[in-house]
């Protein structure tokens, strides 16, 4: 029924050009890292108000997508969606490469990257960061075991895949909780911040998998049945609705309390409103749904890929909004007073990312892409022909 | 398959050559030169025997630093500030040896050696 797995040939000039491009992006990242390392974070756009900038936006987006990339695997292994079984290797592998890319950026942006192993020596179990150290390394190991079991020990696939699924939910909740547990920040202090990250990981992971699958099959001249893409589309629609639901619940709860009128109004019409409406609502929810529900566009592969691209842009916008708007909103230290000071108290923070920051983030993407390209060339990650299993029919189409 | 293997072979050879180059390039040119003599201290007795200090000063300083910063226990006669009363010059005392053995402690990125 399912066709054989095989590595892509990867001998065409196009393939090597792509590899070279990704390597170049990675080198740009390395160069940016050394620039920041030698001149200090002063050459970035970050400042004492906005202390986490573009590197974190890229890194966290990659980490959220890493968790989301496991969707196809989980849908098959845990939820028995047989049509995705052929993509489980690809799914686990994609998780690993995204994790590596994201973590590399995160670690290299430290003020003292030479001390990056200190959290292992002196653990503070109250810190969400320490939890995340365990969550990420655990996820990495589980994904590797999952992948290994699919290659050599099929009897363990079910149990390892299920563990990886549970882990990824906790993992992304942990990522979101880096922000969600911070009481000082009105913008992202919320119990729903963690689950919101999980929801966004579901959409963005599925979207990225769709893009890469369609792209890889097109470029290698392999056959992929359209029905499979539409299966992914249906999953993406469901996940996107979930994201919209989370966003509504969050805003509804906040706006119910007069205590949040000021900050929430600031979010909707303030300096970051464009990112909120265009990026968070537009790219994460509305634009993809409009395309996917469209009777004509939603039923073409191009339409699904376009919606997926928008969704992936959306995850970056979502993370950027949480981070940048969250840090820009001034602290209301003395309620009833308007504050001003040389340390810019009482004013919305100013932040314009610099090129080195973008370079570092893009370097992370380059690294992930490079590992992905090499992985599918040297390992049997993808079926030579992707066809829907017999008897499987698309349950619904717009 | 064969083309892939040949690629691996070529890559390995390249890597080996690169390593060899680094090894040769990094070979210390001053091998055989006499070790430098740090400046003789001014005062009489160090807080620990000199021979012990020679081997353990790094752990000693690190331990004192941890105790002072984290536990708030200050032993003033053994603080870094005190060292300078006898070892008057960081350049002629600390750096001379550290440069020779190529260790770069970052103490003095922040601490100002008293003059």
């Amino acid at each position, binding site marked *: 029924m399912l066709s054989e797995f095989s590595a892509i040939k990867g001998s065409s000039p196009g393939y090597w050009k792509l590899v070279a491009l990704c390597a170049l992006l990675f080198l740009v990242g390395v160069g940016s890292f050394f620039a920041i390392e030698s001149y*200090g*974070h*002063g050459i970035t756009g*970050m*400042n*004492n*108000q906005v*202390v*986490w900038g573009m590197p974190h936006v890229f890194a966290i987006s990659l980490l959220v997508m890493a968790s989301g990339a496991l969707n196809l695997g989980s849908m098959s292994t845990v939820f028995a969606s047989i049509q995705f079984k052929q993509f489980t290797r690809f799914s686990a592998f994609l998780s690993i490469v995204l994790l590596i890319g994201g973590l590399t950026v995160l670690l290299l942006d*430290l*003020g*003292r990257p030479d*001390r*990056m192993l*200190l959290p292992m020596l*002196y653990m*503070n179990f*109250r*810190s969400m*960061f320490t939890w995340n*150290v365990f969550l990420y390394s655990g996820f990495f190991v589980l994904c590797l075991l999952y992948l290994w079991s699919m290659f050599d020990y099929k009897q363990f696939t079910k149990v390892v895949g299920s563990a990886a699924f549970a882990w990824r939910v906790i993992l992304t909740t942990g990522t979101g909780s*880096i*922000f969600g547990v*911070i*009481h*000082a*920040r009105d913008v992202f202090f919320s119990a729903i911040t963690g689950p919101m990250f999980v929801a966004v990981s579901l959409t963005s992971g599925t979207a990225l998998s769709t893009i890469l699958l369609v792209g890889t099959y097109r470029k290698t001249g392999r056959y992929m049945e359209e029905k499979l893409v539409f299966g992914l589309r249906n999953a993406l629609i469901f996940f996107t609705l979930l994201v919209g639901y989370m966003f509504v619940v969050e805003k509804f709860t906040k706006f119910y309390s007069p205590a949040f009128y000021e900050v929430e109004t600031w979010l909707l019409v303030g300096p970051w409103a464009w990112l909120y409406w265009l990026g968070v609502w537009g790219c994460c929810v509305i634009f993809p749904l409009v395309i996917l529900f469209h009777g004509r566009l939603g039923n073409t592969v191009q339409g699904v890929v376009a919606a997926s691209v928008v969704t992936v842009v959306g995850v970056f916008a979502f993370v950027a909004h949480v981070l940048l708007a969250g*840090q820009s909103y001034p*602290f209301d*230290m*003395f309620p*009833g*007073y*308007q504050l*001003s*000071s040389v*340390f*810019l*108290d009482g004013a919305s923070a*100013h932040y314009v990312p610099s090129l080195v920051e973008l370079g570092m983030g893009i370097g992370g993407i380059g690294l992930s892409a490079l590992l992905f390209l090499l992985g599918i060339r040297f390992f049997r990650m993808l079926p030579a022909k992707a066809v829907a299993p017999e008897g499987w029919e698309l349950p619904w189409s717009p | 398959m064969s083309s892939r293997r040949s690629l691996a072979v070529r890559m390995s050879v390249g890597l080996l050559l690169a390593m060899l180059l680094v090894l040769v390039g990094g070979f210390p040119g001053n091998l055989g030169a006499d070790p430098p003599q740090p400046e003789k201290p001014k005062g009489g007795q160090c*807080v620990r025997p000199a021979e012990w200090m020679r081997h353990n000063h790094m752990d*000693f300083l690190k*331990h004192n*630093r*941890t105790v002072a910063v*984290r*536990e*708030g226990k*200050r*032993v003033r*006669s*053994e603080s870094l*500030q*005190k060292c300078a009363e006898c070892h008057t010059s960081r350049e002629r005392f600390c750096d001379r040896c550290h440069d020779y053995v190529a260790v770069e402690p*970052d103490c003095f990125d*922040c*601490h*100002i050696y*008293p*003059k």
Partner: protein
Amino acid sequence: MTMDRRSVLGLGGVLAAGVILAPGLRLIAAPEDVTEASDKRRWGMLIDTTQCNPACTACTQACRTENNVPLTGDPERDIHWIRKVELHSKDGGKPDRSLPVLCNHCEHPPCVHVCPTQASFIRKDGIVLVDMHRCIGCRYCMIACPYKARSLVYSTPSIPGTPNRKVPMRAKGVVEKCTFCVHRIDDGGQPACVEACQKEAKGGMLFGDLNDPQSEISQRLRQVLSTTIRPDLGLKPRVHYQGI
């Protein structure tokens, strides 16, 4: 570390007596050679905002001199251990105020909770410190602190002409903040800002041991109406404000 410490104590005590008498200081007894932070004490501060003049920067100036904190001229990346904040009543119902904001040395400091390496920690006497030797520069503490008490060192700072050699300078890439002038406290002194306020201004800053019911600060806190910044967060800050 099995070496004998006692043999050097006598000598050290004598030496220590010689270095501590900085000019202009109130005469305080020379510290013992060995002192240790006591878990019986809880250092705190009371700031009387009615005494604070918007034009006065004695406390912030003193802090910069004492702790070698330079001004780089880049307001977005300058390091501030203590800063003056101007308060303007939004509805005009309350008088405008000017007051210093510094690290509040909370009983439940969120910076310490989130620090992945325990570089931020609470000393036995309640002072919240950053162990610069251990800080990896992740800045999570800056996200968590509701007082903006912390600054990242964005570039290698210039060393002032006559630095205070008793306080370390800084290297780029770590986070730093007010230490309550821990080096002075250990020598039996007061934070530089408090001292400057008492000498050069109206003396609106009071520093002392909150655990000692007889201390001046404890007595004043019982007598006057005071508040802390954002008491709703439950952090139990130890910098109290009077007059707002």
